[in-house]
């Protein structure tokens, strides 16, 4: 499947003239309605490239659907570029552009907020009063009424074919407003990827569900946790498992999705673009249309052994969650159903490269119900006598047990290449239990909407605390080796072993948007408020064993100014 074109049944974002996004699954043979903006058949965008801007046409007399017209870039940019010439020439030409639409063009005045058509220059009955010339008093009156009245005024002026002077009293911004209305039926088709999903969740949908994490924060976490694709096989046998990242995600799966995107495991078949898979649509349809989740499978495809593990050893994400199941609902926009533990092929890459376990399974696996009840061995002859349903349950149980066992064991074995966190839970408690799981040298990146939790975390690694830990270790730590101290349980003075993290730091980023138009370039006037977003970064350290603690005073901190 090529990701360069709109595929049937994939999610896309439609960008509307209001700058809002509409997130839709593109089901073939349906009508996509953009409400007031019009509607069109889904088939008209399927198999077309992304990033095209369309205009919804009027229905032809002999057709029951509206066709689309691709709006050429020159037309899209005409406004911004037209300003250049308008600026270069004198005001007179400008006025000309304001009132005279080019041949056959329809001027429609639209309320930007509601998308409501206020007035149209032709085709509809126009309020008789608008045809009359307005008096100066009327204009002043309307001006006083505020912005929305301004629109009304422009509409009236526009349609009254007079009073050019008054029109120019209105700013270029109003002129923009005038020009935008004819784009009312335009939309742009964008691929739904993580940056776009994040923007949509933050600005249009529900920022609290993603902990108000902005794209700039998300990008920083991905980089500082050094998350990237890792090749499935190494030439040498050493370090067979590599590129496993540990994740604590309370953003509904947004953080997970962003990391998966960096690792090339989010989008289905990202590499397949060049392969001739498309030529074989039947296979795909067969697999895709399979709705039954029962065990009744065609006999030709042998079901693998229940205890066979579907998981990759490298390039994986391990998600720690606080409910019995992880909350990764946003992954559905990438066609991954995280609630189905036992999907059928073709598998989403996340099925093999993402694992999840609860904090209880990590810290007290003996208390886990699945693990506590290993499924019984049943002889094949006996199994054959069972009813289909019972047999299916048996297989499912065995598979779940084997997978859970593997996930818990491999996670507890540690050696993770990095840690990425976005969670309202106290980061100190998170690190207390995850630091021992990180390979020394592994980077750590933690997102928090507010700075306070991260500030307390950094304080755990302050110069003073580290120095004191070495020169005058707490009683509970005495006589313990490095490995034991990696699992330091924390006390009031040392919530964490302060020597386990290097270069603990906090930063914050904000991308400020600008408007760039000739003569009118400035930062945009409003932006979303709310959480600023902070990132903690550091590296997991492996302190030297013994001696260095035994040595005398550690008073001078020149090696470690803070």
């Amino acid at each position, binding site marked *: 499947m090529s990701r360069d074109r709109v595929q049937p049944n994939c999610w896309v974002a439609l960008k509307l003239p209001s700058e809002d996004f509409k997130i839709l699954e593109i089901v073939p043979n349906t009508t996509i309605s953009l409400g007031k903006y019009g509607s069109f058949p889904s088939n008209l965008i399927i198999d077309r490239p992304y990033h095209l801007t369309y205009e919804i046409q009027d229905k032809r007399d002999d057709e029951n659907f509206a066709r689309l017209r691709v709006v050429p870039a020159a037309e899209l940019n005409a406004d911004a570029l037209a300003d250049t010439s308008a600026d270069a020439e004198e005001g007179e030409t400008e006025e000309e552009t304001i009132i005279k639409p080019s041949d056959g063009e329809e001027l429609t005045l639209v309320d930007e907020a509601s998308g409501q058509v206020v007035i149209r220059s032709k085709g509809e009955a126009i309020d008789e009063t608008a045809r009359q010339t307005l008096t100066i008093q009327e204009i002043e009156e309307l001006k006083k009424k505020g912005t929305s009245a301004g629109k009304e005024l422009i509409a009236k002026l526009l349609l009254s074919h007079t009073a050019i002077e008054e029109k120019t009293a209105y700013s270029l911004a109003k002129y923009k407003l005038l020009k935008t209305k004819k784009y009312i039926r335009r939309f742009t088709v964008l691929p739904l990827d993580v940056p776009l999903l994040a923007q949509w969740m933050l600005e249009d949908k529900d920022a609290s569900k993603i902990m108000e994490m902005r794209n*700039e924060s998300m990008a920083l976490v991905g*980089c500082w946790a050094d998350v990237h694709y890792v090749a499935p096989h190494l030439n040498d046998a050493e*370090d067979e498992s590599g590129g496993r990242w540990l994740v604590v995600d309370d953003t509904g799966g947004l953080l997970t999705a962003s990391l998966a995107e960096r690792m090339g495991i989010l989008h289905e078949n990202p590499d397949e673009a060049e392969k001739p898979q498309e030529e074989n649509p039947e296979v795909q349809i067969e697999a895709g249309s399979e709705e039954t989740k029962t065990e009744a499978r065609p006999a030709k495809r042998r079901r693998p052994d229940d205890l066979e593990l579907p998981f990759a050893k490298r390039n994986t994400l391990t998600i720690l969650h606080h409910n019995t199941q992880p909350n990764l609902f946003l992954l559905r926009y990438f066609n991954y159903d995280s609630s189905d533990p036992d999907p059928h092929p073709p598998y989403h890459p996340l099925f093999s490269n993402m694992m999840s376990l609860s904090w209880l399974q990590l810290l007290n696996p003996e208390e886990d119900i699945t693990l506590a009840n290993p499924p019984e061995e049943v002889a094949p002859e006996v199994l054959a006598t069972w009813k289909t349903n019972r047999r299916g349950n048996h297989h499912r149980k065995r598979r779940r047990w084997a997978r859970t066992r593997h996930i818990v064991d491999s996670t507890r074995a540690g050696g993770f290449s990095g840690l990425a966190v976005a969670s309202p839970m106290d980061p100190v408690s998170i690190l207390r239990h995850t630091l021992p799981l990180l390979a020394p040298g592994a980077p750590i990146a933690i997102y928090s909407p507010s700075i306070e939790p991260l500030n307390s975390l950094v304080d755990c690694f302050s110069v003073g605390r580290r120095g004191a830990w*070495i020169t005058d270790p707490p009683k509970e730590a005495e006589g313990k080796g490095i490995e034991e101290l990696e699992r330091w349980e924390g006390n009031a003075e040392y919530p964490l072993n302060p020597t386990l993290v290097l270069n603990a730091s906090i*930063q*914050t*980023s904000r991308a400020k948007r600008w408007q760039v138009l000739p003569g009118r370039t400035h*930062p945009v006037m409003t932006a979303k408020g709310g959480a600023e977003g902070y990132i903690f970064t550091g590296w997991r350290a492996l302190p030297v064993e013994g001696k260095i603690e035994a040595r005398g005073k550690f008073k001078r901190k020149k090696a470690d100014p803070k």
Partner: protein
Amino acid sequence: MATAPQLLEPRQRSKPGDLAVVLLARDSYEPLILEQSTGAVDGYAEGAMLNTRFGSFPHSTLLDIPWGSQVRASAVDTGSRGRKRRREDSGDDASTPALEDTEGTATPTSAPAKKAVSASSGFIHILRPSPELWTYSLPHRTQVVYTPDYSYILNRIRARPGTRIIEAGAGSGSFTHASVRAVYNGAPKSEDDRKGKVFSFEFNEARFRKMEEEVDSHCLRDFVSIKHRDVYNEGFLVDGKSPMASAVFLDLPAPWKAIRHLSRRRPQDMEQDASDDSKWVSALDPKKTAMICTFSPCIEQVIQTVSDLRKLGWVEVDMVEVSNRRLVSQRDRIGSYLPKEKGANPNPADVTEALSKLREVNQKTREFTRIKANGREGGQDDQMDVDGSNSEREPNANNKLDESSTEKSWMQGRLVHRPEAELKSHTSYLVFATLPPEWSEEDEAAAYAKWPCGNEAKVVGSLDKAARKQEKRDALHSKKKRKQDQADGEAQ
């Protein structure tokens, strides 16, 4: 077959030939290629040596150890290289005398002083390299793009595993390293196996050479192509072939002079040699949307770039500025009765403390007056001392300090944060734009034939009034019908 470069293969231990980043002190990094030595190197019997202001470290002590390890300095015979001082007790941490710097280590004359010195200055940490560590440790030849900018840029231009990205100029290679991590999706198996790759161009000869060296020593040859090129005039093809790029990053003084080389067809302003018109090759992948970012410090550059991008048919033109702040966490220790340590503010902590302070002064004044009066009457010297001890401070209840808390100054005071002393308040403006693939009438006709319209079964998305009414009517109708059926059933 090419192996995964070390930068993109998170192993657990260091090995010869690896790039390591040494953490000397907070925010102080130094890159180092680890060497395995078989004999003396540069006069060091231990072989290749890292000399720092915190001591000397033979590479052998940095090899085959877990990344993140703390490593003690070694006592090293500096041979002819430094002062001929040498300590036998090699088990001790020791800064190499030859390498003492100004703020450095006290001369180890007495035992306690020696201990203090070695403990505080005799170690480093060795980190597994990442583009971030490289960016903050690389030898600067130019201004570089730092993590706050490049993380955001790579995100916006959708540089992901498999992306082919063009970059100019390479400069110091900071962005190069970040982008190769972003686009890496394995080593190409053959000549025409198209994998994620960085196509980098640099016009300054010395910088180009240095970049070549680094790409080589970081084993990135298969993943980064670096060309010595003036991209304004010569564009972005590599050996006449298209890099087939879908992402572009330009960090050049005049990006608008380069973007015309990034068209889908021969731009009009490029001289047309009628004979080879068909041979014009685009550097972009014709099937993919191209995303560009240009990076310029001045607004004038932005305006020119934006205008040219629009003229050349790029859409969704957008400009942002990323402002990043690093925050320092500290404890604000305020109080007149805190031990006089560095960092403590002797201001009264609160009004109560201020009052008690004032009362003390009052008392002292009174006593002083009294002593003076006494003195005139022939006072004694020792009277002063007694009085002095009488006026011992009386910390208020809120700020009582017992013995243990004096030691734990790192737990005292309020935990606060503030921006770093030196702020990077402006780096550059980031211009983004998108160039969709070409879509011809024929393409559209073919797609329409494959996906014919007119048989739409249902409506999705936001419904307009008419559609909603219709839907309601349908629902009502079926409800009625159901009721009717039910009634019929009951009647029977």
